[in-house]
């Protein structure tokens, strides 16, 4: 019944029952978000620290709102303005924060494996909010939730992840989560952006965006991450848009497609503005659902 782990480090190896439980629990919290008073007392007295070593708007606000709506006490830590600038090691920073008695830690870091490392030096429940190019499990869970909300199922759906697969932690978590839930997953993007041997995870690889649009029920379109040297994988953003950008014209090939995007959107690069505001996308639903899904994860780990 409860989750099989007391941390959420990634979706790799997370059993189907756990994902199912998180999605079902999120449905409850989705209802709470529509109430006049969007707050329940469930995590009263729990202290949660948001350790963000990397910049973030959506995820940090989403986690903070989820925590506040569960009545937990939250503390935000950002890299700038902290003692890490004075040369304190990561381990010491965490040990000091933990000495102040915290129950849960939500962590984002530019290095893969940091959440895993935290589980060894801390007794708190650890939630990964993105580690390097590794995983971003809550994003994948909210993608799964949004797909299920719209199409009423995940099992048997054909889902293609489009864009910079190599730099993307969203892609990896999505691949694990979607495969576990029974979807057929493919990835599409310029060959330079697709890691070698990614087929070994059980996904199909191709480089034809028109085919991806025609053959799939869902496209999860990733952001071209300019801050992660994506520029070195493609000649120009204009060329990327020409060959892989989703436009209104291209979507005429499949009028039933559902488009997801983790944000922030580079308009005119991976999505044309028309598509980003158009009828096929559920980008803002994803953001709303993100709060509900994070509330579900916090609830399930926090009351374990």
């Amino acid at each position, binding site marked *: *019944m*409860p989750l099989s782990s007391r941390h959420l480090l990634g979706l790799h190896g997370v059993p189907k029952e756990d994902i199912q439980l998180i999605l079902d*629990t999120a*449905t*409850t919290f989705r*209802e*709470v978000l529509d*109430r*006049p*008073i969007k*707050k*329940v*007392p*469930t995590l009263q007295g729990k202290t949660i620290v948001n350790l963000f070593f990397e910049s973030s708007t959506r995820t940090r606000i989403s986690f903070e709102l989820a925590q506040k709506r569960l009545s937990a006490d939250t503390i935000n830590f950002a890299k700038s303005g902290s003692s890490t600038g004075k040369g304190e090691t990561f381990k010491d920073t965490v040990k000091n924060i933990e000495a102040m008695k915290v129950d849960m830690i939500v962590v984002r870091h530019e290095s893969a494996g940091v959440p895993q490392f935290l589980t060894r030096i801390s007794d708190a429940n650890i939630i990964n909010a993105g580690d390097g190019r590794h995983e971003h499990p809550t994003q994948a869970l909210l993608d799964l939730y949004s797909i299920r909300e719209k199409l009423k199922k995940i099992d048997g759906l054909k889902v293609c992840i489009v864009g910079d697969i190599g730099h993307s932690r969203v892609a990896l978590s999505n691949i694990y989560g979607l495969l576990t839930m029974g979807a057929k997953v493919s990835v599409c993007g310029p060959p330079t952006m697709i890691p070698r041997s990614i087929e070994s995870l059980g996904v199909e690889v191709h480089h034809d965006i028109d085919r991806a649009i025609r053959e799939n029920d869902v496209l999860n379109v990733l952001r071209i991450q300019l801050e992660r040297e994506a520029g070195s994988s493609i000649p120009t953003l204009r060329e990327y848009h020409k060959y892989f950008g989703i436009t209104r014209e291209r979507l005429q090939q499949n009028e039933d497609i559902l488009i997801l995007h983790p944000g922030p959107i580079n308009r005119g690069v991976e999505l044309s503005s028309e598509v980003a505001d158009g009828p096929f996308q559920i980008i803002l639903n994803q953001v709303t659902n993100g709060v509900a899904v994070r509330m579900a994860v916090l*609830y*399930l780990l926090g*009351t*374990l």
Partner: protein
Amino acid sequence: MKNKIINKETSATQVNEVFLYMDIKATIIDQMGLERTITRLAHEIIERNTGANNLVVVGMRTRGEFLAKRLHKKIKEIDDSTVSLGVLDVTLYRDDFRTRLKQPEVSVTDITFDINDRDVILVDDVLYTGRTTRAALDALMDLGRPATIQLCVLIDRGHRELPIRADFVGKNIPTSINEEIKLKISEVDGEDAVYLIDISKENKQEES
């Protein structure tokens, strides 16, 4: 009337079937009795509220939900007015997260109407410690500001731990803490009945 029976127990949200041995001490209410009790409660509620115009009926998951459905139907039969029916899940408002061994399963509150300035009839099957009712009161307050909240329970078994009293009671049954009241309702259990069960020999089941 002490007989061991195998009982199929399913809850509305749970599909898997749990087989439970129950030590039934007595049948408190049978099928006809339940029908009569609900009819009386409906009349009492309408009488005390001088009509059903401002009423809304809210059942507490999971057994209260089905009682509320029946009560709602009965009230509408008697008074012929439109009364809204909702379902309240109080899991998120419980006070025993830290002391329980098992994580409670949450489900959705389904109250789509406005409860501001309405007379809310809160329906539950068994009133015991009063803690679930306390949680329900908090949950309702977060949904709005009702004119009144009136508590209607099928069985009041005593042992209150909080200053809470029911406005409408189907039956008062003084119990020992080694006993349990079990409502069976045909929508879930295939029969209508209320049993008094001896749990002194088993693992005590959690109850509110």
